[in-house]
């Protein structure tokens, strides 16, 4: 196994072009586990730790351009306002040590259906900035996951950053695990209200071969909010509305039975989380509306 240590992003892209089988490694919280247990024996490891750009972020008008290696700890501490859903999801990643090393770029590279960042990215709306010596392209995050632990990257591409929409409304993230910390998701749910576009976006983790959006649930809720004038009125949502949203979210799941949970439970739990997160985000939205009016 050769260890490639590019000193710059350009060198990294050149190395990846020359050795398309090279496995990029930053925090190592996934890759090292696989290597240590001999589940994976790549020809080349491409160490991205010397590339400082990857640890930085820029807050633009529309997006946060989050460097691929920014650790979860910093997202929690410093990006809570523009990325509330991702900050909540970051809290649930592994242990403090893992959160100090692990990054969204790694979550995307591994593309595990259980990756904690995915539902938050799907709900917020994001594009993965994939780059190679051939150039840069932006991949909408919902098109990025192509199968169990497979993603849309070409063999010579690396993830430079992910451009995540700044929150324009309340966001929530929930994750079910069978202990209260350091647990891989049995299933997870992310929800973002987007009052500016009067849309709703969702993300489901660990309940299908890839992270997915519950599009039928999103469309239903957006239509219901629009038709009922809820965005303006901030009125209570009828329980039946929340229930139907939950059912549609559960219906978006395509889960399996495994050692962490049954398919039936996953579908059920996604529905419960959808209903609850809708309640929390709507309460927050209404609260803000009220505060705005008072002011």
């Amino acid at each position, binding site marked *: 196994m050769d260890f490639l240590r590019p000193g710059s992003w350009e060198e990294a892209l050149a190395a990846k072009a020359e050795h398309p089988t090279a496995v990029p490694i930053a925090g190592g919280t996934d890759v090292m586990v696989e290597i240590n247990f001999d589940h994976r024996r790549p020809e080349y490891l491409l160490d991205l730790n010397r590339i400082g750009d990857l640890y930085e972020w820029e807050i633009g008008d529309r997006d946060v351009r989050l460097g691929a290696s920014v650790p979860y700890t910093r997202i929690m501490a410093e990006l809570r306002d523009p990325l509330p859903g991702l900050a909540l999801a970051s809290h649930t990643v592994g242990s403090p040590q893992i959160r100090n090393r692990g990054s969204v770029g790694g979550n995307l590279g591994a593309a595990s259906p259980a990756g904690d960042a995915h539902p938050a990215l799907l709900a917020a709306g994001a594009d993965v900035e994939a780059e190679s010596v051939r150039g840069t392209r932006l991949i909408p995050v919902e098109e990025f996951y192509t199968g169990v632990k497979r993603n849309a990257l070409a063999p010579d591409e690396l993830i430079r950053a992910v451009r995540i929409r700044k929150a324009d409304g309340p966001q929530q993230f*929930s994750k079910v695990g069978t202990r209260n*910390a350091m647990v*891989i998701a049995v299933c997870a749910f992310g929800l973002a209200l987007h009052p500016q576009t009067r849309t709703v976006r969702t993300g489901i983790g660990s309940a299908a071969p890839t992270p997915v959006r519950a599009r039928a649930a999103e469309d239903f809720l957006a239509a219901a909010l629009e038709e009922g004038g809820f965005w303006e009125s901030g009125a209570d949502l009828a329980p039946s509305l929340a229930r139907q949203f939950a059912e549609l979210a559960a219906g978006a799941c395509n889960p399996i039975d495994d050692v962490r949970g049954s398919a039936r439970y996953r579908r059920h739990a996604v529905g419960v989380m959808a209903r609850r997160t809708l309640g929390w985000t709507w309460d927050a939205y209404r609260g803000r509306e009220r505060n705005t009016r008072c002011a």
Partner: protein
Amino acid sequence: MSPAPARSGFLPGTTEPHGSRPPAAAREQDRDAPCRRTAPRANDALTIESQAVAPQALASRAGASHAGRGAGTVRTPTALTQGSRTRGGIGESTQRPDGTLKVTGDFAYASDLWHEDMLWGFTLRSPHTHARILSVDLSEAYATPGVYAVLTHDDLPAETRYGLEIKDTPVLADGVVRYHGEPVALVAADHPETARRAAAKIKVAYEQLPTVTDEESATAPGAPLLHPGRDDHHAGHVPHPNIVHRQPVRRGDVVAARARAEVVVTGDYEVGMQDQAFLGPESGLAVPAEDGGVDLYIATQWLHADLRQIAPVLGLPEDKVRMTLSGVGGAFGGREDLSMQAHACLLALRTGRPVKMVYNRFESFFGHVHRHPAKLHYEHGATRDGTLLYVSCRIVLDGGAYASSSPAVVGNAASLAVGPYVVDNVDSEALALYTNNPPCGAMRGFGAVQACFAYEAQMDKLAAALEMDPVELRQRNAMAQGAVMPTGQIVDSPAPVAELLRRVKALPLPPEREWESAGGPPDVRALPGGLSNTTHGEGVVRGVGYAVGIKNVGFSEGFDDYSTARVRLETVGGQPVATVHTAMAEVGQGGVTVHAQIARTELGVAQVTIRPADTRVGSAGSTSASRQTYVTGGAVRHACEAVREKVLELGRARFAAYHPAWNHAELLLEGGKVVTDAGEVLADLADVLEGEAVDVELEWRHRPTEAFDPRTGQGNGHVQYSFAAHRAVVEVDTELGLVKVVELACAQDVGKALNPLSVVGQIQGGTTQGLGLAVMEEIVVAADGRVRNPSFTDYLIPTILDTPAIPVDMLELADDHAPYGLRGVGEAPTLSSTPAVVAAIRAATGLPLKRVPVRPEHLTGT
């Protein structure tokens, strides 16, 4: 690396002169010459000095209550326990020498052992649960550069089987594999990765065989036999050769009692396969010696039991297999059986090179036995006023492919099946199966855990049927001193079962809805799911549950359960120093601390050196069965007493002429001096010893026990009983099926807390392990017997965020038969914790919950 800096570093609060410590430590280091490059092991020649913890510190650790609370509950059995004037004696919370090292990551475990020129051993394991080995091709493995040896069953030099109770376990598979993960071949190479890759090149052709995985398949007509032609001592009385051992316990007349019963409740219960999940994986280093023998540095629970099994496998007399305990990272029963001990020695003797073996976490799940999963059927009958008339039960334990300690686990489950209650009519039986599932054996609670989950569920069910308070029902039937066990044994020391329940019930309940803050967002850390943010209070229901359990202490059923201790008293640099040498495995229980405390109390010296545990001294028995403080502690005490008598004889010979008290007063050793019981100082120990050393090695035994009658289970089978009660308070997210245990209060009678801080630690640890079984810990075995979750990713144990407040109420009611009146403490809290948590979840949900661990699916009907 010199051990000295580490040693001086871990005794920051020394309160006694340092004079003799460096020479003592240096002397001990020389003994480790073969492993000199090894980082220091914290249990090497510890010079332990007194470091008393302030009482208020203990009180806060222990929660609202602490030792000896309540006048009249504390009895001290002998004068010596009334507080020695030598600091750091028994009854004080002296600090553990290994504690800080472990917390800071400086403690050297067996996996840190190192020797120049050492090779690395690796084990090839079976991918099948039951298969015939048709052929083994080693050629490619041998051809791998860096490989020094490849061994299979055909290469074994002597005995090919071993076992704790029954010699049914092949050192390496002998033509058949019987469980997923069974060792088939060994490789030694100059790098662990080389060894692993070479093992992967061994070509084994298997023919898969039909498997048996439960009682039905194991005892079906024509079922494949795991061990055909059994000739062990249980073979004659078992109803089927796939049953390792069966023990009925019959007392009174259940048929007649059933006719009188006004209320009857029945239930079927199931306990999943729990793993010890010790953090330090199996590891050791075998060093071949010039005399043809071998030195083995090893993390184990019982050096001499290993020795007894290893030596015949190596074809060596026991004196050529010299074992030294290395740093042990937890045990909980999982190190009672051999793992890599014989394998490393075989490779070392074959190659003539030191061989180290370390399992990784994945392999560790295959490298040790687990807690027996169990299916239990119970029937309780009572009168309308809640008096138990009879209990009938059947406990089926899955022992897996090899016997391990299944027979003793059966004995415990059968004899403790009814719990700490007075029941005159009992018809129970317990049995362990041979199946193609992973082998099961010792784990903290040892047969009593499974029974306790079921009988406590039954007590709640009975209380509900009687519309009676579940604690009141338990108290009404609680045993007390003088009670008769279903085995006919009289409980002849305190059994404060009702009082323990009263105490946990009397504690104030933790405040409700603690997650709420006025106007602000909820504190999700106080809710089920924690920071996973699954609820802000929706669906959350509180439940409270109680349980109490009974566990035997020490080895039972007629086993000769002795310990050996060697104690030496001498002067070094003008100061008296005691040295304690035993083969006790310090696995984290705090035995080394307690031995030093005993020596200080008995010999009145400040400085005590604890020698490394090894086989140069006689057996100390197993560090299990809650027995080490009782039995090896008892041996140390008696050896100290014998040393004291010899010292006093020396003193009389030298000084009796100068003071009549030498011959006429009760004499004690205190503060480095010989004093009268009135406190008058007669001489300095240094002057009495005059450069001589007094040295005593002796064996000490507790009261003998008897075998259980194979048909009726009658017999004085146990040495001592221990009792603990729990009250669990849980918050259950009833929609998502997630549980947060908010508080798990425990009351336990410990007889006498030799080290109260350690005792509280044991109770909190056992309680937490029981919580794990209640809500998360299970090795998931597929229908074909394969293990599905051999990792800490999917075998979940409680983190600190899952661990509730554990207030501990410690009673000290002396058992006059035991040293200092103490009662073994390590296991009892593991028993009642699990059923208390499940009772609380039942209270919150109204669900019957017949299986542990409780999963979200059970709570949500999904």
